[in-house]
């Protein structure tokens, strides 16, 4: 497999210039994610208004896969309802772990992460931000750990 299928331009771009990469004052939901194997660490912030994600952001440090995944995630769920975001979480989990059915193209830009499923050691990098968002939306207070 070509390395470029993993590190597509969009991944490299979101790693170098992550979107919504900022702490959020007055966030109503915050969750922390940590991957002890890699040392990837991030916090996801979300502001929920009328069941909708009015604002979402993240800070932290991690590899290109985890950073780009978090960045793309914030773009994808911004403005969505909590229920829609949870559906997307399930879809992404299936895509990244290779259990998805259907055309990944329907996930738009997020489909760029599809290559991760061929790198078992890297799957946790890509799912970390999604698990953390899920925890934030569920209001879980304990840090999320993937390893």
């Amino acid at each position, binding site marked *: 497999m070509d*390395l*470029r299928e*993993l*590190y597509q331009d969009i991944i*490299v771009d979101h*790693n*170098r210039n992550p979107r919504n990469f900022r702490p959020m004052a007055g966030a109503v939901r915050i969750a922390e994610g940590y991957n002890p*194997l*890699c*040392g*990837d*660490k991030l916090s996801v912030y979300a502001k929920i208004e009328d069941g909708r994600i009015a604002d979402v952001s993240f800070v932290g*440090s*991690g*590899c*290109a*896969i985890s*950073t780009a995944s978090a960045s793309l995630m914030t773009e994808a769920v911004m403005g969505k309802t909590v229920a829609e975001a949870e559906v997307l979480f399930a879809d992404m989990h299936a895509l990244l772990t290779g259990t998805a059915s259907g055309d990944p193209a329907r996930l738009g830009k997020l489909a760029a992460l599809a290559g991760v499923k061929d*790198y078992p*050691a*890297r799957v946790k*990098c890509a799912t970390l931000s999604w698990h953390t968002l899920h925890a934030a939306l569920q209001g879980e207070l304990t840090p999320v750990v993937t390893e």
Partner: protein
Amino acid sequence: MTAIPTPNLPETYDVARVRRDFPILDQRIHGQPLIYLDNAATAQKPRAVLEAMDRYYREANANVHRGVHTLSERATALYEGARDHVQAFLNARAREEIIFVRGTTEAINLVAQSYARPRLGPGDEILITHLEHHSNTVPWQMVCEQTGAALKVVPITPAGEIDHAAFGQLLGPRTRIFAVAHVSNALGTVNPVAELTAQARAAGAMVLIDGAQGVPHQRVDVQALDCDFYAFSAHKLYGPTGIGVLYGRREVLEAMPPWQGGGDMIRTVHFAGSTWNDLPYKFEAGTPAIAEAVGLGAALAYVESLGIERIAAHEAALTAYALERLGAIPGLRFIGTARDRAGVVSFVLDGVHPHDLGTILDHAGVAIRAGHHCAMPVMDFYGVPATARASFACYNTRGDVDALVTALEGARKLFGGRG
């Protein structure tokens, strides 16, 4: 004891010939020749080790110290022969001082639980350093929790060397045990263990040296070091996994209670009470890793056939070359710059996370380690979540270093690095 025959050392170190002894190296990864630079994690095994273990299972397999039948006698002779070999390799005074364990980690846990736990209490201190592997940190934390003793940590300098002045200050009458790595697995620093041991023992402390990264890179003489304990694993020394060695000074081992109970470690067993076997068997409960001990013996013979000093010189030259080549890559920063270092080179590259490097290099056939190297306090000290680490062994070449450098330049390009 069995004397090791003086090997007929070749005049020059023929790395191409050495490579032919390691069948695993002859393969392609993602279409590229395998360049194995993760030797500090585990080294590859020469044919001599593979064949010795295979031959053991084909011709001699039986339980040791049990049977009167021929196979049991063969197995026992091979197992005990490996112990003699280790004794000679470390220059221990007696074979009873060589305890077979699963690896360095188990050796340290054995000392923590059997030596430290019954003796230590509140007011006592265990001294370690900031550059230890988790396996030379956590067992001591556990025993501190069990006994009320305190764990003290000698700081390191920005170069990754033990702060000698601080060591002198932290070492005191309360220090009961000083535990230190011979060589840092994360930084490559070679610690002045003979000097540190002398100072610690003069202060009345027992000294344990974690030799996991020490034994593969230099000759170790436990009598010259004058330490109380020295631990190492076979698998970093071209031997199999699942076996390692705890060397202990005989009088110290004799005063320690057994750690694990079971077969082989007893003399008599009655429900009213049991009595313990002599050294070294007192610490070897249950059926040991016999084939692995045979493999370790074969690994030692292999290392002696090349000459540990020759291996060390080869690795030193390779490390110097790697430092020069890697140091010329823009944006590359070494983590750990000790003056005295082994063939372990840790680094970070601007804009490319070590885990991405690990994946990208693997695509070029180059195997390195990316992560915290089981030394999270070291990562905290340098303010990095992880590093990339290349580590060398007897079969690595300058061509391997060149392949690493080319792959790193490819990673920079992939991630849009400048320069």
